[in-house]
């Protein structure tokens, strides 16, 4: 698809009456405990993939089949609809209503594009923005889809980087935050082609026209091998991020840090060496607690999740959870809900360092929770 900002702006204007990628003011998450969670999963017995809605008591409320393995999901503001995104480099997405009702809507990436596993809605819920790989040009784009029109693709803008992964809405002036992981892959493949030259970045795009407002990188030394993949955004706009180290995991670099928009460079949190080693160079998801004060990062490779105070990067502790990866904000400040590829869910208080297993109903225990679990605000 030919891409330029005029095309995109024209479409956006025609669709919404305003020339803005992100019309509307960001809607703050309503107060109160999120009681439902969504995640992709894999049934170990049947081999089937699905997206599930599960409550805080471990009851599966809804399960929607997916054509293949999913990755993350996007919750539409208002909390009634969710889009499950394909795992990279697949090309499907499935939109479904949390309560059921309308049949799910499946849509695909454009020719020459594949999804990268993450997407986010515009603040007014009208558009879905998905990280995609332009396999011919070898760079990242955000595909823009009209949620009101069966997820028709409206256009795309560049992410100003290679291998984009997670994206979220920023907190100020309708920005978008994109983790450009920096790793080049070919069509239909996960093979890494540019490890010597990779240059991951954290990029802020204008929601109005898709232009780059700021792009920051870790130091160009050994740290250029830290692929920035996962992010979460605090109420004050600070961005917590987690990396995957493409160098030797034994180097035990810190993998989790934060960046405040406008500051010249991101910082990595001080992390005890035992934890750096335990994380095995791999972070699978990054999430803030409901207050936006505690950063959690999961390492399924190490079977460990680690937690820091966002304000000063103070290390709080770890939760051991074999193959644990999904991490969602919990019911109260400092709390998280963690999920694992072995089918378990845990309610964790990062400040008190207390874990309570959420008992999944027996018939659903053969499911493996995939990389990301998201809270659906009630």
């Amino acid at each position, binding site marked *: 698809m030919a891409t330029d900002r005029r095309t995109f702006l024209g479409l956006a204007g025609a669709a919404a009456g305003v020339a803005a990628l992100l019309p509307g003011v960001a809607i703050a998450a309503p107060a109160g405990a999120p009681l439902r969670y969504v995640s992709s999963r894999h049934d170990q017995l049947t081999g089937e993939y699905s997206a599930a809605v599960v409550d805080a008591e471990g009851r599966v409320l809804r399960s929607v089949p997916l054509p293949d393995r999913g990755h993350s999901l996007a919750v539409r503001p208002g909390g009634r609809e969710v889009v499950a995104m394909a795992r990279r480099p697949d090309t499907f997405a499935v939109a479904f209503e949390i309560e059921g009702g309308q049949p799910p809507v499946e849509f695909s990436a454009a020719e020459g594009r594949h999804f990268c596993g993450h997407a986010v809605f515009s603040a007014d819920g009208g558009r879905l923005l998905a990280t995609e790989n332009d396999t011919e040009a070898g760079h990242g784009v955000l595909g823009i889809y009209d949620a009101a029109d069966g997820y028709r693709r409206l256009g795309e803008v560049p992410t100003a980087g290679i291998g984009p992964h997670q994206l979220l809405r920023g907190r100020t002036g309708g920005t978008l935050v994109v983790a450009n992981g920096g790793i080049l892959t070919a069509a239909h493949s996960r093979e890494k082609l540019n490890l010597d030259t990779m240059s991951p970045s954290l990029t802020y795009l204008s929601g109005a026209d898709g232009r780059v407002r700021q792009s920051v990188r870790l130091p160009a030394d050994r740290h250029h091998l830290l692929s920035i993949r996962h992010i979460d955004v605090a109420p004050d706009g600070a961005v917590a991020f987690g990396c995957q180290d493409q160098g030797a995991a034994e180097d035990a670099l810190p993998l989790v840090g934060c960046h405040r928009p406008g500051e010249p460079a991101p910082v990595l949190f001080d992390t005890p060496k035992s934890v750096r080693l335990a994380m095995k160079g791999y972070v699978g998801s990054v999430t803030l607690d409901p207050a936006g004060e505690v950063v959690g990062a999961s390492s399924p490779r190490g079977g460990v999740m680690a937690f820091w105070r966002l304000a000063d990067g103070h290390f709080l502790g770890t939760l051991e959870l074999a193959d644990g990866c999904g991490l969602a904000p919990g019911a109260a400040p400092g709390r998280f809900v963690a999920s694992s590829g072995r089918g378990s869910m845990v309610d964790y208080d990062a400040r008190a360092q207390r874990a309570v297993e959420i008992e999944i109903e027996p018939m659903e225990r*053969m499911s493996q929770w995939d990389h990301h679990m998201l809270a659906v605000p009630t």
Partner: protein
Amino acid sequence: MTLTRCSEISLAAALVVALPFAAGAAPPDHGAINRAVVAQHVTPGYERLADRAEALGNALQSYCQDPPADGLAAPRDAFHAAMDAWQRVQHLRHGAVEGNTRHPRVQFWPDKRGRVGGHLVQFLKRDDAERFAPAEFAEESVAVQGFPALEILLFADDFSIPAEKAPASRETRCSAAETIAANIAAVAEETAEDWNGVAEETLDAKATTRDFYTDLVTGLEAIGSLKLLAPLGETPERARPRLAESWRSARSLANVAANLTGLEELYGAMEQTLRKGSEMSPRERLIRDQFEAARQEAARLEPSIAATLAADRGRVRIQSLIATVHQIRDLILQNLGGDLDMTLGFNALDGD
């Protein structure tokens, strides 16, 4: 970290992290492990199933041609023998059994939406003789092709019911039952043949060991969660014995006993190769003792979960069996996974 238990299911399983094989030790010989598993467990298991399904077909044929005085006793016995054979390999979900939807064709379970009964009635009502031809039958709904449909025919839909009260004539029901038995035998035979001709590179691959190891752990998990915990319900009043596998033939716990036999066979083939003929280690002795204890616990209970639940202390005994099986799973996760140089890792292996 402090840990609060909120259920009878231990969080320990979720928390264990397998340690890699001891530093300095030689990496495990995955090729040798895979070959031992295939030779000692996989191929003989499917061959046993093929033989017993064939015997079941013969028993059905005799019964249908000339119903004996003891009614369905012989075909029911043959059903139990064939089901025992299947339950010994039921946990194998990778490799040859993945092709041609073989696994669900032998047994479509769990059947959360009650498809087997519905599809079977539709199948019986249809008026086309072609559907009993093996090639045609293999294309039918998987729900009618295997043990659960046969179980309904043999245990719920007694062939002696007069034709006008049954959804189909006795002849039709006999044809369906014989066709299902032949179908199971054919699937088992094809699966065994595929394993006999499997590529050397598959047998050499660490990924194949990972599949066997996943099947071992998943099999143990399925016993605890799906087969035992689900029918138990949260309280005695909320027990749901019809969620149990094979409740119609009243053999749910016989299935579990056969599962444990097969799973120990799989575990033993791996462990024996790892120790290269030397003495059993204390941990292998412990795990094998636990397998034996679990099998004995299962054998002491009524094979029917409903009957066990109705018996004195039945519920507690099932809970105790669940605990033993989960203990075996945890021991294997903590010990064998590291020695095989693998963790299960659905997310750990993902790379995103």
